[in-house]
């Protein structure tokens, strides 16, 4: 039964009843209701329990400022901690109160109220120390945390993000925002208007005002209709502007857009201008037991009566320090609520205010000291200011207004500064930091006429037109005498209802010396809840100011941070999956690899490569050994396409490469290749690779897979910033050239079996040379480099030919037993041969000398990147770690890669580490590479690997285990 639903009025659709459950109770409401308005219509007032003391709580506000009634939604829109005031009612909705068990009416946690005096702010810093925190933490964690988190992602529907550009983004479609949109829209600007509410109108939805002689909501709907007809205006409702970033980049969270399957959309808006017309938020008065169910913000009570046709109580006491509550009282009375009295802090109540509520008792210069009643307010005690004659007035609704705070959140997020305004007793926008204008309530224009005018002015300023005349509006002037707290309050007087922070808590913080407003906030947790203190923060500042004898601006505010209201992570992430953040890189062979059952994994730089190609019944080691043996004894092939490849062209390319590489490149003859090392100017190893000279002015530079992007950046930066007049052009051709590398003693035979026109003899095509022609009747470049230590032919073709080449190789190689080899076998082969791998042997500390590659450091060139720094570093007295080979004394003992070497294997600072360890198929034992202090001079010594449970002795050798003179790769 909607016992408190008014028979008529309201912006609800009575033809569309909705049924919902709250804490298991079946209730009903109407389309247009929020959960909060429907609960009140059903006469449900005890809706929540507080965070710390588990005090009974009701509904306090009517929008996102709601500090009290948070619910957990169940079922298809499961989510936690939703203010009941922002949950749009729908049929079948199921909601539960958070933080109480079994129900808000009977909550076992309520026992905390008995101990409240021993649980002041920060009590946990003083206790729970003995015997240790771990004893107490689990139960504290269980008690905290409000709602349970949804266990599953939404079963249906998705989130998405969208970019938008606008000349003007307006946050808020209240009177100021609508007016600004109208003016800017008519002037032809590309306008985006976003409002958090279900429908446009802002404060006009809650109030009964007129604009231009007609009902204000008529003006709203006419305006919305006109805006809808403008192609240059995008109008979003249910869309909160939640973040204001640098360079006028703002985030708008649109909920339930009219698109089935789309849950939420995040708009990323880049706007040339921004108008924040975000209105004002009513603040609480601070008196005793100001948290009892039935104690409600006056504006909220007015909203329930006008917008939702709900009677929030039968007999109300209204308490205020400003004019706005008088119109609330008038509207409540019109809705059939008896106004028992209006308590006004002010000595002089303006006649215009009194005129709104004729025949009502108005007690000026009075304060409310306490609300009586536990599970619902049943009376209030009031007293004249400075007097002690208390009087009790019975009521079941206490509507209070402590004034209005301009919603400066977005303006402050944009880094605009705030100032304290004595007349409005609030913080107002001061200097903008970006192209931002505040309008309406957000700018302190707290009457309708002012709001319309400031909206028109702001829109006109952005559009560069004359501000039009605004229609007349009837509204009381806003007149406030601030009251930060009632000094004679009895009972707990809450500043932050959500986090149970009372005046006593703030006073305790100050007494203990936590006297900065940030200290107060952190010590008491005031303002740190889900509402981020929208109704209470300024009262905390005021309470601090009163106690310290300071002005509010001397106390200052805490920082406003995004988001304005909580935003689901799903909306922030949008539709993108991780494969967008971490995109896949494929080669034309990827599908073939998968079809072969290759074990694929991430191999750096977003490439997914085959690690090995297992056959049924094989262990990992069996597979790798088989692949290695194929290369050492027969022939294998791998897809080398991910190697970074760059084409350099221009007169100065040779000179540029001489600067880039440690060795001399410019003397290379066309048709030949040279291995080289690149250093950073800090003398650290950047990359190694091979350069090919195509002709006098054209080169191909290949880099390691993982460092291709870094090298690209490095080269471009040097050319564009240091040598802009050098004639060199760089083209990334990694994905223009794919390659299949055929390696092993039978590689030449396989090559010969492929139809081609390149002379493959060692005389014509020796090691470290290349030739262009055809392979398998495909245009190709064949390069004789080797990363395995065997005779190798790297066959480079265009990607569109890669699969054909691969198939041809498999066919031609079949008689020779060719098979694909993966990264694991490649690793084993290169370790056996003592070749360098950047990810293993180079960890940011070694230089080429440490790796036994002093030969690659040109002595002839007076300068190249890293030369000076390597010399400088080696002139220091730091002991160098040098590359060595290690053979475990027990040939069957594997050394974990990365394992430390320590003197004698003791638990002592390390003297090196094993960078790689593999089973050598040629030596039939485990062999490894290591970086060892002064290692080059310690060949033959025994060193010790330190493990968690023992040591492994190993002999130090030269870092090469196979074909030390390179006869095989040159064959």
């Amino acid at each position, binding site marked *: 039964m909607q016992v408190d639903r008014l028979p008529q009025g309201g912006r609800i659709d009575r033809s569309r009843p909705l049924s919902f459950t709250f804490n298991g109770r079946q209730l009903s409401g109407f389309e247009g209701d929020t959960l909060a308005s429907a609960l009140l219509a059903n006469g449900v007032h005890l809706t929540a329990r507080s965070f710390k003391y588990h005090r009974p709580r009701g509904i306090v506000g009517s929008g996102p400022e709601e500090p009290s009634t948070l619910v957990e939604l169940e079922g298809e829109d499961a989510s936690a901690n939703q203010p009941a005031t922002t949950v749009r009612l729908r049929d079948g909705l199921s909601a539960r109160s958070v933080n109480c068990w079994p129900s808000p009416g009977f909550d076992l946690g309520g026992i905390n109220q008995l101990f409240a005096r021993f649980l002041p702010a920060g009590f946990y810093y003083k206790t729970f120390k003995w015997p240790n925190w771990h004893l107490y933490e689990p139960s504290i964690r269980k008690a905290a945390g409000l709602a349970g988190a949804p266990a599953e992602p939404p079963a249906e529907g998705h989130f998405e993000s969208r970019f938008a550009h606008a000349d003007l983004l307006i946050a808020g479609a209240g009177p100021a925002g609508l007016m600004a949109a109208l003016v800017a829209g008519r002037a032809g600007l590309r306008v985006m208007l976003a409002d958090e509410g279900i429908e446009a109108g802002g404060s006009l939805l809650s109030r009964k005002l007129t604009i231009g002689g007609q009902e204000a909501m008529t003006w709203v709907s006419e305006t919305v209709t006109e805006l809808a007809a403008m192609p240059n205006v995008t109008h979003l409702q249910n869309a909160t502007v939640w973040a204001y*970033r*640098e*360079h*006028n*980049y703002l985030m708008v969270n649109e909920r339930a857009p009219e698109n089935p399957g789309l849950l939420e959309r995040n708009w990323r808006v*880049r706007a040339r201008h921004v108008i924040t017309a975000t209105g004002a938020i009513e603040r609480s008065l601070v008196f005793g037991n100001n948290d009892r169910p039935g104690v409600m913000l006056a504006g909220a009570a007015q909203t329930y009566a006008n917008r939702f046709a709900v009677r929030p109580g039968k007999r109300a006491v209204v308490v205020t320090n400003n004019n706005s509550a008088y119109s609330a009282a008038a509207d409540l009375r019109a809705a059939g609520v008896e106004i028992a009295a209006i308590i006004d802090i002010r000595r002089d109540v303006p006649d215009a205010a009194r005129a709104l509520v004729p025949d009502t008792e108005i007690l000026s210069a009075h304060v409310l000291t306490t609300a009586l009643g536990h599970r619902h307010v049943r009376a209030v005690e009031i007293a004249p200011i400075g007097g002690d004659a208390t009087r009790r007035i019975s009521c079941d609704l206490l509507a209070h207004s402590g004034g209005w705070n301009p919603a400066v959140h977005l303006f402050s997020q944009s*880094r605009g500064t705030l100032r304290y305004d004595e007349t409005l007793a609030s913080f107002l926008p001061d200097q903008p*930091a970006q192209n931002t204008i505040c309008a309406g309530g957000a700018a302190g224009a707290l009457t309708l006429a002012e709001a319309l005018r400031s909206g028109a002015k702001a829109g006109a300023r952005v559009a560069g037109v004359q501000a039009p005349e605004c229609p007349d509006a009837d509204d009381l002037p806003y007149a406030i005498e601030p009251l930060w707290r009632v000094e004679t309050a009895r009972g707990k007087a809450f500043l932050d209802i959500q986090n149970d922070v009372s005046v006593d808590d703030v006073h305790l913080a100050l007494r203990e010396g936590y006297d900065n407003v940030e200290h107060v906030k952190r010590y008491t947790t005031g303002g740190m809840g889900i509402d981020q203190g929208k109704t209470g923060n300024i009262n905390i500042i005021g309470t601090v100011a009163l106690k310290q004898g300071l002005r509010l601006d001397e106390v200052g505010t805490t920082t406003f941070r995004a988001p304005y209201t909580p935003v689901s992570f799903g909306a922030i992430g949008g539709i993108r999956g991780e494969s967008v953040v971490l995109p896949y890189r494929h080669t034309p062979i990827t599908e073939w690899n998968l079809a072969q059952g290759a074990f694929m994994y991430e191999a750096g730089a977003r490439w997914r490569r085959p690690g090995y190609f297992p056959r049924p019944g094989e262990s990992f080691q069996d597979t790798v050994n088989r692949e290695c043996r194929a290369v050492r004894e027969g022939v294998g092939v791998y897809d080398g396409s991910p190697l970074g490849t760059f084409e350099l062209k221009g007169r100065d390319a040779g000179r540029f490469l001489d600067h880039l590489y440690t060795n001399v490149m410019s003397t290379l003859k066309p048709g030949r290749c040279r291995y080289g090392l690149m250093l950073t*100017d*800090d003398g650290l190893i950047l990359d190694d690779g091979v350069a090919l000279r195509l002709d006098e002015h054209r080169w191909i530079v290949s880099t390691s897979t993982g460092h291709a992007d870094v090298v690209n*950046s490095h080269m*471009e*930066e040097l050319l*564009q*910033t*240091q040598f802009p007049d050098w004639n060199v052009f760089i083209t990334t051709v990694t994905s223009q050239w794919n390659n299949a590398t055929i390696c092993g003693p039978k590689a030449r035979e396989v090559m010969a079996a492929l139809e081609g026109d390149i002379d493959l003899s060692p005389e014509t095509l020796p090691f470290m040379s290349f030739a262009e022609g055809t392979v398998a009747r495909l245009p190709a470049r064949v390069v004789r480099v080797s990363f395995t230590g065997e005779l190798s032919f790297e066959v480079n073709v265009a990607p569109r030919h890669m699969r054909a080449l691969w198939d041809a190789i498999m066919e031609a190689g079949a008689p020779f037993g060719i098979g694909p080899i993966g990264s694991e076998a490649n690793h084993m082969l290169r370790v056996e041969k003592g070749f360098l791998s950047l990810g293993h042997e180079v960890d940011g500390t070694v230089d080429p000398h440490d790796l036994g590659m002093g030969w690659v450091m040109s002595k002839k060139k*007076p*300068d190249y990147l890293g*030369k*000076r*720094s390597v010399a*400088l570093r080696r002139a220091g007295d730091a002991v160098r770690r040098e590359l060595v080979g290690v053979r475990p004394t027990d040939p069957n003992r594997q050394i974990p890669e990365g394992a430390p070497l320590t003197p004698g294997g003791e638990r002592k600072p390390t003297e090196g580490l094993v960078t790689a360890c593999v089973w050598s198929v040629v030596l039939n034992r485990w062999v490894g590479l290591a970086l060892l202090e002064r290692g080059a001079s310690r060949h033959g010594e025994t060193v010790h690997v330190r493990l968690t449970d023992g040591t492994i002795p190993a002999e130090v050798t030269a870092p090469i285990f196979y074909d030390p003179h390179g006869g095989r790769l040159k064959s």
Partner: protein
Amino acid sequence: MLLIPCPFCGPRNESEFAFGGPVKPGRPDPNATSNADWVAYLTQVPNPLGPVQERWWHVRGCGTWLTIWRDTRTHNIVEGPADAG
């Protein structure tokens, strides 16, 4: 996300760029510089509480390296790149 003025492409989102670091003094001749000066060149960058000159690479755009002055307190770009013409 900054809006970075590319001399070729116009104002573009920061996500199209790679950061190229603050602009340091030019590279000294390594063979005519003291150890201390060489180390200072390598390791020290301007770190002002205010405008800093820095490079961005329009790597997901036209590929140009550009230089702007950006205020580290506000992120306002106080001077864009010279017009590439």
